[in-house]
């Protein structure tokens, strides 16, 4: 596929690996912010080929992992209601709520459907005027324009039986929280290429200069990621801390203006809970008051649904770096990828799931993959 296969060229990738290894005077600790980048890194075995030159810490950029338990419980409650068709991206179906997940609600008769696009959920609402269609609007800045458009169109086309359960988060506050954490080890960031495609990178510039960390806006293919790492390593070696753009084929300095415009008209900044991490001020997006008729939390009065994360799951401690996944009593017993207690065991890139797979593969905790996950722990922000 054009613009994919070129950036998977193993020769190019290997020559970048050589450069990174040759130019690192010591082991640098970098964080890739985005779960999509983590996916490539794990899938390609990048930590293993980089060896000691760079330690990669997996950032919190996975909506599946950071959507708070309370919002999952609200989703489960809505999905169970007979008048509701609950629609979601596929990722969210297996995320455990307090007692179950969306799959299990479906098995009990709740109507849950996977959609590819939020506009598909809106179409479903128009085709089923006698049902309530709720869309689980999760994601980072990349997904916000799509979800904003669905709400915008619902108002424009007057679709009263459509609403969204919003759990949007934004990247820069999370990066700030990581950098301000007293036990921070992150020396440079690979910023999320698609988040920046929408938002641009201006808001990262103060972050880079205030905390003196290089930030490289990076794409998602192996060559992109390795080039991003190489650019960050060069900055570190030269003592620079700038925002650079590796993903120039998609990202402009000011992002996508029409997309930002709709996002700012539909959403406003709100404080948001991050699962396992806690509340980060002004780190999320919520619907503006004028869109209340399409806000599932208001429409179905979900405010009464509260949840606290299960005590036996220590995902919060894992994410804060207090313990390794294997030190959790539930790890590998009550909590496995089949029956996850916490979000880091759900997606295969989650700290616990990855640790579990690599520990079994290597028969040791000291595997490169496992080691970088251990690092993930200490790099993620503590509860404010």
């Amino acid at each position, binding site marked *: *596929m*054009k*613009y*994919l296969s*070129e*950036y998977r060229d*193993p*020769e*190019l990738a*290997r*020559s*970048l*690996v*050589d*450069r990174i*290894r*040759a130019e690192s005077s010591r082991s640098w600790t970098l964080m890739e912010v*985005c*779960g*999509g980048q983590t996916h490539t890194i794990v899938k390609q075995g990048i930590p293993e*080929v980089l060896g000691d030159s760079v330690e990669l810490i997996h950032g919190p*950029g*996975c*909506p599946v992992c950071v959507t708070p338990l309370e919002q999952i419980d609200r989703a489960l409650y809505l999905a169970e209601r007979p008048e509701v068709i609950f629609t979601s*991206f596929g990722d969210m179906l297996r995320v455990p709520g307090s007692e179950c997940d969306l799959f299990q609600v479906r098995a009990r008769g709740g109507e849950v459907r996977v959609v*590819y*696009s*939020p*506009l*598909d959920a809106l179409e479903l609402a128009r085709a089923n005027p006698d049902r309530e269609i709720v869309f689980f609007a999760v*994601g*980072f800045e*990349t*997904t916000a*324009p*799509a979800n904003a*458009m669905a709400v915008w*169109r619902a108002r*424009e*086309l007057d679709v009263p039986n459509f609403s969204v359960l919003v759990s949007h988060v934004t990247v820069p506050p999370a990066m700030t929280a990581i950098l301000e954490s007293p036990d921070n080890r992150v020396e440079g960031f690979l910023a*999320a*290429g*698609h*988040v920046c*495609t*929408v938002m641009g990178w201006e808001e990262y510039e103060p972050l880079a200069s205030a905390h003196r960390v290089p930030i490289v806006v990076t794409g*998602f293919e192996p*060559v992109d990621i390795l*080039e991003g790492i190489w650019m960050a390593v060069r900055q570190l070696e030269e003592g620079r801390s700038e925002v650079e753009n590796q993903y*120039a*084929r*998609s*990202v*402009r300095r000011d992002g*996508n203006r*029409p*997309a930002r415009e*709709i996002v700012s008209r539909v959403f406003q900044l709100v404080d948001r809970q991050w699962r396992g991490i806690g509340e980060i001020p002004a780190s999320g997006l919520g619907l503006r008051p004028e869109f209340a008729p399409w806000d599932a939390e208001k429409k179905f009065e979900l405010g009464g649904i509260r949840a606290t994360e299960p005590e036996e799951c220590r995902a919060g401690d894992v994410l804060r770096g207090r313990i390794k996944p294997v030190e959790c009593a539930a790890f590998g017993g009550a909590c496995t990828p089949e029956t996850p207690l916490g979000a880091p065991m759900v997606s295969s890139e989650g700290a616990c799931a990855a640790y579990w797979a690599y520990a079994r593969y290597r028969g040791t905790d000291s595997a490169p993959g496992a080691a970088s996950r251990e690092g993930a722990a200490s790099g993620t922000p503590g509860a404010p």
Partner: protein
Amino acid sequence: MCLGIPGKIVEMYGTEGLPMGVVDFGGVRREVCLAYVADEVKPGDYAIVHVGFAISLVDEEEALRTYEALKELDQLDEIEWMSEIGSGRPPGPAETPEG
């Protein structure tokens, strides 16, 4: 997060006032909302698509430039490597792992 894939815009039209189009991803086609790129794209252009929305026009010159620059580096590497072999030095710690 944010799976975004480049695809070629093969058709553009409006649906109830919303710019839409068909995008081809290496033989897989899907209807995509073009509202956020409508002013800058034409059929034949490549766009990055996320959850059914084009979020950027792929800058083809930039894409080519990046790729060519990396290719040059790669060739440079080979020359250096050959000269190292020639001088009898071992390839060193940056030895390429075998695939």
